[in-house]
């Protein structure tokens, strides 16, 4: 009973929400880092295999990175809303 009361009180606290927003933003950064890291890795590998295609590969890499960053920014915007709205 007591632990339930404590947990409820903690859950209703704004400070915990802000910590949650901070953790969420960190996780979003990790997700974006992993995703774009993989894109960069594959792109560099592909250029190493076929240097003539470097231009094409570079443009595709940048486009994919921008799209994945869009997803990460979703999470960032939600965390921002939690923190400041």
């Amino acid at each position: 009973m007591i632990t339930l009361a404590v947990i409820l009180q903690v859950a209703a606290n704004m400070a915990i929400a802000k910590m949650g927003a901070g953790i969420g933003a960190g996780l979003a950064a990790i997700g974006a880092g992993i995703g774009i890291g993989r894109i960069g890795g594959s792109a560099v590998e592909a250029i190493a295999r076929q240097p003539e295609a470097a231009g094409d590969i570079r443009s595709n890499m940048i486009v994919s990175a921008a799209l994945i960053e869009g997803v990460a920014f979703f999470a960032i915007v939600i965390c921002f809303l939690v923190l400041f709205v």
Partner: protein
Amino acid sequence: MTRVLKTLLIILFALSAFTFQLKASDEHAGADTVSTGKFSTGELIFSHIKDSYEWHITKIGHTHISIPLPVILYSQQSGIHVFMSGKFHHGTETYQGFKIATEGKYARKIVEVMADGTEVKPWDISITKNVTSLFLSILIILLIFISVAKRYSDNFARAPKGLQNWIEPIIIFIRDDIAKPSLGNKNYQKFLPYLLTIFFFIFINNVMGLIPFFPGGANLTGDITVTLVLAIFTFTITTINGSRDYWVHMVNAPGIPWWLKLPLPLMPIVEILSVFIKPFVLTIRLFANITAGHIIALGFYSLIFIFAEKSAAAAYSVSVISVAFNVFMGILELLVAFIQAYVFTLLSAIYIGMAMESHEVHAETH
């Protein structure tokens, strides 16, 4: 790194370490700077990112220098009011019953104070900082493109000169790498003006947002309403030009198993949701990228002032790092400005192209 440089850096850092103590900041750190005069990072960042009723240029000593902008309000109670925002004296005074609310639901917006003290928001069609920046960027875009078009219409086959040299490769790039692959060789002419317009609009506004002094510096493409309107344009064009196949495939897509459609129409739900999610994602992507870039630049800049409150030497040593990072972020933001314009235009072209596809022969994979 040379020995001299290393020694210099070590001395600078050592100086800053001996001249202040770090304390855990209390809850009221970052409170309003109007009353305490202390520097508030949140206040600085928010005031630069959000819209405002005057264009703040600089602050010399204790006086703010800003350009007042027209305020146009329509109140249900008292009719149309038009006046310059200088009457508010930077948000400290009430004029004709209107004031800029400082807190609550309508913070930073103009509200009308009723007789009993409640705040009511009137219809607000003022020329704010973002609207002024929009007009300025429209002026710049018109100047650039009308002069370039004139040179083409005078004599098409002449060698390009001046601004043409900058515009022509970008237009060819958009035509050959965005419009033709996504829309097909037969249809791209119809949509090329729209794609070129949004590309140059977004790119020029992004770059203007990076320039720290007037007439740049307004965060127009970081305003979610502006990016929402651009996404609505794409959505409208996609919907109007949707072929019959586009709508039929949304409800009854070929090539997927029947149990995704019949008892519970999962695929149709996903497809219909994606019609609305795609413009929403376009909005958020552009808004978040540009705003995040501005926040980072402002954050590094305000680092100097945060350290300045501890000691002057700390501020000087931090300013070296801060300026270096700001230069790096500025270059990155320039790249992001171009990439975001390119990605917005590319995705708009892809959505329009996908909506216009028809009479396709779907390969049956048995």
